[in-house]
């Protein structure tokens, strides 16, 4: 416990050398297994999510390779179905969500002046539930019948008929859900109880606010998913008939329960991304965030509205017109707070002293492409249009614009932004910019054309297609291979920076003004804020 923290800024050159002098914890592998340190756990979350990102990415490559040509070339239809299923599940639950929990673990205590998370041991558990869940997901390919080819939404009645791979998937979802709920409880408690003196709720950095709201969404929606998959499990093995038509159940009921979780889930992914962007854009505009209070209220209203619009995913199940109209108008209402946020980000840059390092580039990429994805979402919210576009590639394009160019770009922005604080090293700025431009260009090559495929009527989740879709599919596949390879560059940049990066300056970004930059040395020592700072 040697790290003496200078809580009054200008800490570089301070008396702490953090090599091997906090010897109270085990070393080697056991250090990581037993750690309760929020920085260690945050690091593990980020590496885990990157590993899962590569696994899910390989699955996406299989999908795009099969779709390069019409007809069946590479994989069987069953295997293709399981690829789309596990690509979705792994990217949502294994890559994007753990990545933002990793950011939360690293950043929330640093940004509110807390020594650690509120429940460090539970934090360790939250992380270590993830690898078994990942093993369950991947091992479902090895059981008879192979992986479950049901789509990431796991709709009944397909799920009640699948082989044992489905059971492994259900148990994996249970573990992932438990991990998320524990992590969220930890985050809420940390934010509400462990803020430094003077750090009122409305002085918190927006990243912390977005995570507070997200954590509430998780606590309220994850158990509903756990319930839905548990019902599927008991339908499969214990003779219940929740979704089984023969016993008086209803498969449409599954969709209602699933999307009651599923729509908040998309904001669980998007809102922390908004938080990262709300830190990065002011830092590189050298201006405070425009409309801080309206950002807080807009994020909260998005969160509340997200529980009221679930059935816009299921316009074609045979809802009454009144129901369709309600869900259509409620969905369109979400565009208002989202528009407030986009306006505020743009207004933050207005007359700012802008510079365009890699984090800012990714934030701008987010701003343009997330907004585009939001617009296609608005198109899909129209019942009359959605009846045509339901389950086409237009939907695939829409949600990849918000998930990849939204959440993933924001995660990249966050990694490049906080990397110097975490490691004390600078990444290679030129390579970072190349990574951004490759990602941006290949992303659009992959997904922009999918709008046209969807409008022309190409259905999603089908391994074969009509001949008129060949050109757009080939463009999309080439883009996907390029996008996949570009992410290996990201891995190279990170490893190179850790191994031989230049020493980071105390404040690498002029405009960054949150506690971790102003009150802590770079890199952040192993133990921070054991004596809380006072926030004016």
């Amino acid at each position, binding site marked *: 416990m040697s790290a003496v923290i200078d809580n009054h800024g200008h800490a570089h050159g301070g008396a702490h050398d953090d090599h091997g002098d906090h010897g109270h914890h085990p070393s080697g592998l056991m250090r990581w297994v037993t750690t309760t340190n929020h920085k260690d756990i945050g690091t593990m979350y980020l590496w885990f999510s990157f590993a899962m990102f590569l696994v899910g990415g390989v699955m996406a490559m299989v999908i795009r390779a099969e779709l390069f040509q019409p007809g069946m070339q590479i994989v069987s239809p069953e295997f293709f179905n399981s690829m789309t299923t596990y690509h979705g599940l792994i990217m949502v639950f294994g890559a994007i969500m753990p990545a933002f929990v990793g950011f939360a673990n690293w950043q929330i205590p640093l940004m509110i002046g807390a*020594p650690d998370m509120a429940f460090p041991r539970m934090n360790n558990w939250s992380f270590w539930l993830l690898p078994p869940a990942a093993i369950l997901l991947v091992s479902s390919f090895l059981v008879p019948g192979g992986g479950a080819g049901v789509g990431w939404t796991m709709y009944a009645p397909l799920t009640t008929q699948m082989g044992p791979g489905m059971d492994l998937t259900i148990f994996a979802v249970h573990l992932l859900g438990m991990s998320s709920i524990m992590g969220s409880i930890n985050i809420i408690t940390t934010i509400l*109880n462990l803020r430094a003196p003077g750090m009122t709720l409305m002085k918190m950095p927006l990243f912390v606010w977005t995570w507070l709201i997200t954590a509430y969404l998780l*606590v*309220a929606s*994850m*158990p509903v998913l756990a*319930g839905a998959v548990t019902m599927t499990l008991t339908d499969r093995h*214990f003779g219940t008939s929740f979704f089984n038509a*023969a016993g*008086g159940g209803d498969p449409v009921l599954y969709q209602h329960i699933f999307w009651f979780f599923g729509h908040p889930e998309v904001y669980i992914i998007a809102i922390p991304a908004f938080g990262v962007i709300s830190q990065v854009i002011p830092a590189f505009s050298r201006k405070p965030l425009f409309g801080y209070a309206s950002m807080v209220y807009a994020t909260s209203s998005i969160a509340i509205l997200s529980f009221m619009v679930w059935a816009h995913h299921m316009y074609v199940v045979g809802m009454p017109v009144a129901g369709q109209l309600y869900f259509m108008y409620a969905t369109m209402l979400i565009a208002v707070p989202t528009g407030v946020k986009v306006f505020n980000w743009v207004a933050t840059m207005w007359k700012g002293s802008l510079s365009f390092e890699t984090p800012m580039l990714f934030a701008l990429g987010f701003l343009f492409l997330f907004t585009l994805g939001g617009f296609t979402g608005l198109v899909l919210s129209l019942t009359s249009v959605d009846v045509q576009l339901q389950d086409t590639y237009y939907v695939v394009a829409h949600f990849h614009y918000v998930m990849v160019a939204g959440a993933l770009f924001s995660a990249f922005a966050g990694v490049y932004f906080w990397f110097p604080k975490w490691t004390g090293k600078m990444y290679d700025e030129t390579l970072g910019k190349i990574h951004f431009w490759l990602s941006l260009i290949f992303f659009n090559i992959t997904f922009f054309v999918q709008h046209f495929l969807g409008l022309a009527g190409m259905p999603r989740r089908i391994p074969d297609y009509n001949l008129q879709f060949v050109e757009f599919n080939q463009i999309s596949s080439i883009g996907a291979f390029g996008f996949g390879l570009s992410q290996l560059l990201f891995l190279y940049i990170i490893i190179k920076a850790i191994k031989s990066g230049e020493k980071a300056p105390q404040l690498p970004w002029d405009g960054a003004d949150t506690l971790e930059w102003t009150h802590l040395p770079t890199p952040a020592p192993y133990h921070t804020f054991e004596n809380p700072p006072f926030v004016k």
Partner: protein
Amino acid sequence: MSSASASVIDANRQLLKKLLLVAVMMFGVGYAMVPFYEQMCRIAGIRDVFRSDQPALSNTQIDLKRNVSIEFDSNTQRLAWTFRPLDRHVEVHPGAVTQVMYEVRNTLDRPVTGQAVPSYGPQRAGQYFKKLECFCFQQQTLGPHETRLMPVVFVIDPQLPEDLGTITLSYTFFEVAGTQKRPG
């Protein structure tokens, strides 16, 4: 956490309990949606296939000028029953009460419970097809090798659009899960 005072630890525990309670309650909310949607569908009249249609016909007069052709279809879904209508086809006047019979036989050595689910072709004819009595309103349990004749009593609503001259009524029998004893 050495610097955290006892009061903070206490407050943390309190919050942990409350949030865990919320999580457990939301798990219950998922299950509470099952009866909730059942009631919603009943009120809205959606998917109410297991209940007799009230003969709330605005005009109970038989429309003798019109003939409608009704075809009967029968299927089983992973169920070792033979299931067939005695008549494949009848001609009826809209408004006339008609009875047809289906025959079902259990080919297994054990009792089996099944549930028939009706559907209509074309689908929009369904709302004009009023079943007053149907074996599909209850689950049917057949003993080993039992054969049973089962009636369907129906009226075609005289409001039936002019362009619908033929309606197909199709039943699919499913085995009711959980009623069969698993071996071992």
